């Protein structure tokens, strides 16, 4: 059945047992993002410590795709440098905008490769991206704020290269 390409078992697992769910302290920024066409909502907090995504916590209502995506996203970005996490966001965005034409790299995207099938359903792409966009927005607010505890450089790509070197 074609549905199985969207509702991969990994997605349903994350949906039933979401990781890192619930709003936690401490945090540097909190955002609320909505998907007005379907009513999905997410409230998301980030904590940045020394240029690293120390924690991402969230609470929200939404379909299995949006909820599972939030769970997978937190698994991927927590503990990463901002630069690495932003690179993952770009990679995931490219996958979701690919209409099923991109073969995802499991070494990079891990569980998020399960969303490749969702990219074939234009109406659902926004669901999968909701939490990623919220995380990116919240992180950007921390990075852009001069008073932020993170004190990260605005260009996330520089530390990323340092780390990989």
């Amino acid at each position: 059945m074609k549905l199985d390409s969207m509702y991969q078992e990994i997605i349903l697992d994350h949906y039933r047992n979401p990781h890192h769910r619930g709003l936690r302290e401490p945090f540097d920024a909190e955002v609320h993002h909505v998907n007005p066409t379907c009513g999905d909502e997410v409230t998301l907090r980030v904590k940045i410590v020394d240029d690293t995504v120390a924690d991402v916590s969230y609470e929200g209502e939404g379909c299995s795709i949006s909820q599972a995506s939030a769970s997978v996203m937190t698994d991927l970005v927590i503990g990463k440098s901002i630069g690495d996490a932003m690179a993952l966001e770009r990679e995931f965005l490219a996958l979701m905008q690919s209409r099923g034409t991109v073969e995802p790299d499991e070494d990079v995207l891990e569980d998020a490769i399960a969303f490749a099938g969702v990219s074939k359903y234009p109406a659902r792409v926004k669901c999968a991206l909701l939490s990623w966009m919220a995380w990116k927005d919240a992180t950007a607010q921390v990075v852009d704020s001069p008073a932020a505890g993170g004190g990260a450089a605005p260009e996330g790509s520089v530390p990323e290269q340092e780390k990989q070197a």
Partner: protein
Amino acid sequence: MTDLAGVPELDVELVRKDFPILDRMVHGDKPLVYLDSAATSQKPRAVLDAEREYYELHNANVHRGIHVLAEEATALYEAARDKVAAFVGAPDRHEVVFTKNSSEALNLVAYAFSNAAAHGPEAERFRLGPGDQVVVTEMEHHSNLVPWQMLCQRTGATLRWLGLTDDGRLDLSNLDEVVNERTKVVSMVHQSNILGTVNPVAAVAARAREVGALVVVDGSQSVPHLPVDVTALGVDFFAFTGHKMCGPTGIGVLWGRRELLEVMPPFLGGGEMIELVTMEASTYAPPPHRFEAGTPMISQAVGLGAAVDYLTGLAGGAGMAAVAAHEHALTEHALRRLAEVPGLRIIGPTDAVDRGGAISFLLAGKDGRAIHPHDVGQVLDEQGIAVRVGHHCARPVCLRYGVPATTRASFHLYTTTGEIDALVEGLAAVRRFFGA
């Protein structure tokens, strides 16, 4: 409510033959089960033919030019106005203004109120300012809420609303308090697009008249499904849209009482809506042209006229009474069948009294956990069943009932009880799919 007893029965299988799209297969070999008519209706061949014929034989701009085509196009466009006027019981064809859709029709009235400040004493009834009140209901589509919010922001007037009862009806217990001497305009939905509720417009209009307020009705979901007589309702303005009543997209209607339209400030300025123009100032054409700036939606109006003819001629001329009777039977069947689905909860009236065929619901899985409407809709779509999911442009209703979104199945003259049964089976498949 219209008495539907003794109305000739609609032969739904015959009706379906008029709608080419209903023969379509989706996802390979699944027959289309279209249960999203509240979003937009399908179109009968007669409407498609009318638009094609207009372009193939008569296309020209209207109200200008003296050549044959221009005269034919004008006659067709204005004939559509006559048909629409008769269809909703308008006593005067000049009371029918063509707009783009219901939203534009409602905005037209809302902007008349704020434009009144720049007009003379004739526009007194449309003048609005701090201390004045505008009343809507909690079950409005955003198109009949946001324009009034914006109007209140522009003028300093206060927005108030009638609330909802737990069973999805309009709460009229404080009607006399909410609609009071300060109320200048009451704008309300006739039939809710999310709850299906048919509201007691005449009762609210009677109270509005007592306090001298104008009454605007959003009939987007009633005109396609019920016999509507704007005069009998006792209202001042009535908006509806063509595409939900088997007509094309891009054409809507504002009906308004002539004496009001004649003093109502215009909304959009431009060609066609003027009388005399100088570099300094202009005077305006009488209604309806005063409100139809620019080249209108000609082929769409012709298509809407064809839709009106089609609906009027159904069941040997029983027309909308037969449509209403058919949909009432469908709604009773659907409410009964949906009540059998485990974990299903209807948001809106659970009986078919004063209720149309748009049914919103929530579904829970075998583990009792809610299955999000988006997921419900996706699995139904896989089976060829088209429903709408989300907040249906009526987010305040979702907030009122504490739900993030709903799944909505909605019917029309071509819907069969078999399709409703397919929905019930489809929902069982949804519960199996998301069964833990």
